């Protein structure tokens, strides 16, 4: 296939460790001019770290890198003709398209920038990519799709050898995505090699020539996509034995605790679901599928239209205070930003939401003696390992912080509990304990919704899993029919293949 050509990039056993802990191990591949390599793996498989090593943001701990046959200690980026388009755009919103494209290499002198030349270069670059964008428009006035294209135009202006694209299609509409793909094909023809990171398997198969699959930080496979059927690749990514789950779940009651009907906002569309008391409903999907937005709307943080019923009583439009009164709690995905009072003690963090419950238990007078006792009991209950309940919550590990946060809300004796990524950044041991708590909790009759990017977690604790993709519910699985590969491919196919109807 590459007679006589030499790889533009070749890496051998690239590894990265942070403070002794290996996060990426043994990434090995060769990339030839005009080739597209797909870097695939689940969330947290090590794609970002690998990408950052390949675009020069991180220096590998081990391994060799050859750029056009020459061994280099690390990737330099633009100087070697390598450039990356990251998920977060690196454009300047209030500058024009032309200014954004040329800012790294302005024509003219420092005291007299040649704007005519700038505009000519920008026009030329956009014409080459075959896109029509007003070069004098401010970037912030463009839609997400056009911004993405400007970003790619900018990156490929400076990198003529390798372009790294990290999830470039997540915020794009279908026509915009097609535009992007035609640009990629054009660059491919020009001999630019690309590393394409995507969750969407059909995109990978449509665009890429070869793949590198990562799982838990290790390269688990590489090869040409034409030799590997999609199912096989997906199984490679998921990897784990999909079988007996860790928990023997109880049977939930028949009584519907929470139901929503045709809930819509600009991030999701006509979502309907119902959760029974004692049931654990998992919501699976990729980042950006609208899961967090959905549960935030249910909890009343974000505006949405549609009906929400609690115990068959209409409560929409939802507001946080109304939901709290109805016994709904929401444990946020980002505990550091939205959940923890990070300078305060374990005690205060635990009791912040349930203070009224503790105070009620006081026999007489004021004071917080009830709080100490209750928090001590709660901490023990939740198995929080802390030197004392007066210790600052900042000193605790992520897992223990999460337990404190869960305990805080569970202490309010909720009826409906929404958990967004309940074990994000938590080690395996604590994860299992948190899962146990969630199951025990549901057993007491609480309806639980768990949003998670960790599919294994959902498979372990859920009675039922619903799959969300680009703002739509696209599938539903009962526990006896759980199929990890099916769920992943449903969450990750970008075009609506035969989407299952959602039963509400």
């Amino acid at each position: 296939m590459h007679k006589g050509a030499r790889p533009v990039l070749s890496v051998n056993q690239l590894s990265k460790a942070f403070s002794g802990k290996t996060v990426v191990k043994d990434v090995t591949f060769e990339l030839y001019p005009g080739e597209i390599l797909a870097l695939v793996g689940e969330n947290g498989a090590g794609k970002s770290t690998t990408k950052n090593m390949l675009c020069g943001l991180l220096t590998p701990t081990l391994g060799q890198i050859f750029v056009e046959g020459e061994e280099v200690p690390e990737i330099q980026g633009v100087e070697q003709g390598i450039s990356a388009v990251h998920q977060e755009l690196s454009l300047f919103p209030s500058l024009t398209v032309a200014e954004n494209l040329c800012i790294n290499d302005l024509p003219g002198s420092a005291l007299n920038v040649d704007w005519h030349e700038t505009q000519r270069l920008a026009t030329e670059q956009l014409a080459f990519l075959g896109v029509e964008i007003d070069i004098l428009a401010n970037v912030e006035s463009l839609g997400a799709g056009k911004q993405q294209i400007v970003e790619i135009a900018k990156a490929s202006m400076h990198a003529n050898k390798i372009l790294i694209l990290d999830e470039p299609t997540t915020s794009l509409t279908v026509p915009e995505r097609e535009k992007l793909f035609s640009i990629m094909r054009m660059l491919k023809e020009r001999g630019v090699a690309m590393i394409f990171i995507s969750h969407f398997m059909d995109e990978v198969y449509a665009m890429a020539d070869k793949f590198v699959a990562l799982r838990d930080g290790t390269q688990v496979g590489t090869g040409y996509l034409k030799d590997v059927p999609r199912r096989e690749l997906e199984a490679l990514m998921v990897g784990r034995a999909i079988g007996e789950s860790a928990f023997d779940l109880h049977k939930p009651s028949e009584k519907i605790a929470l139901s929503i009907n045709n809930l819509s906002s600009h991030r999701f569309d006509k979502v309907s679901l119902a959760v029974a008391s004692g049931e654990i409903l998992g919501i699976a999907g990729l980042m950006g599928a609208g899961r967090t937005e959905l549960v935030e709307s249910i909890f009343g943080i974000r505006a949405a239209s549609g009906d929400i019923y609690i115990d068959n009583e209409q409560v929409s439009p939802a507001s946080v205070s109304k939901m709290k009164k109805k016994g709904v709690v929401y444990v946020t995905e980002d505990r550091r930003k939205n959940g923890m009072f990070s300078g305060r003690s374990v005690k205060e963090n635990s009791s912040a939401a349930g203070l009224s419950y503790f105070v009620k238990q006081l026999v007489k007078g004021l004071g917080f003696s009830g709080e100490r006792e209750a928090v001590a009991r709660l901490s023990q209950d939740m198995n929080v390992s802390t030197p004392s309940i007066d210790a600052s919550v900042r000193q605790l590990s992520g897992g223990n912080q999460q337990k404190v946060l869960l305990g805080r809300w569970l202490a309010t004796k909720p009826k409906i509990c929404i958990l967004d990524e309940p074990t994000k950044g938590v080690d395996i041991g604590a994860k299992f304990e948190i899962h146990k708590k969630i199951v025990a909790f549901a057993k007491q009759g609480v309806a639980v919704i768990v949003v998670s990017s960790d599919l294994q977690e959902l498979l372990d604790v859920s009675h039922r899993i619903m799959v969300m993709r680009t703002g739509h519910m696209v599938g539903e699985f009962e526990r006896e029919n759980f199929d990890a590969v099916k769920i992943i491919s449903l969450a990750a196919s970008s075009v609506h293949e035969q989407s299952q109807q959602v039963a509400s």
Partner: protein
Amino acid sequence: MKLNNYKFFEQNWSAIAVATLVLCVFLTIASPAFMSFANMQSVLVQASVTAIMAVGMTYIIIGGGIDISIGAILFFISSVFAELFVATGSYPLALGVSLITGVLLGAVNGFLAIKFKVTPLITTLATYTIYRGMAIHLTGAQNIPVPREIGYLGNGSFLGIPVPILLMVLVTILGVYLIQKTRFGLYLRAVGSSEESAHESSLPIMRVTVLAYLIGGLTAALAGLILIARVGGLQSDIGIGLEFTVIAAVILGGTKLSGGSGSILGSVIGAIFLVLIDNGLNMLNASPYVYDTVRGIVLLVAVIVDRLSEVRKSRELIKNSAMKMRGTTS
């Protein structure tokens, strides 16, 4: 203008220009004395100090910062000038040292603001106190009369045009040039637009930011010299509250406090507009005690109108993207 890169520039200052024009028409009708050559000249001379400082402040705000110590810089520079001139009798020496000191004080603000990542509002609140304290220490809080020679800066004229107006025009032209034609101008707007992106593009963030604050210090120094020349001496309350008038002028001129874009010309017109309000109230025999209130109300109305148009724009954007999403996925 078609091939020029400054679409932003056309948009930002148009509102204040129209408002100024309307105000002028109104005052011309309301008061016959308004549209006289003498009054116009006096308005522009009065506006020159604020306008020159507003040019510097626009740089700082475009770069995503703010500097509330410029009134204190102005006071300190004036003190340095007065003390040095009285002590040595050398006009060029005093002038040179004053301007260089202005540059240094501004640069210190910029360095502190960017280096330690403390909100520039807090950083410059601290330097405001320090600079004013240093000036009080230097002068012993005494009023110092300035010799006649420097009166030229404030009261002299060249080819029949008052020197403060000439300096204002000069600073404006230089200011517009720097932001429009130089690499620094683009980098400054870039840094103010997104510091993370600037970091990723490895733009010289530190240099650009310090330069913006430095220009702020320099314009404050120049404005200080004009002010004491016009007043004929240094008083210890000079420049108090001036930073807020300057910031008001910049905001009225269409520059956003969020940084990234702005208009030098708008700021200058904003400064003139504020003087026109005073002038008009004076012409209409309003009580001098209502001036501040009126100025405040004007600023409030301006920012609310601006905010409403922003909100409308972003609503449309969200609506459009939502429609797009439905259109392609259902």
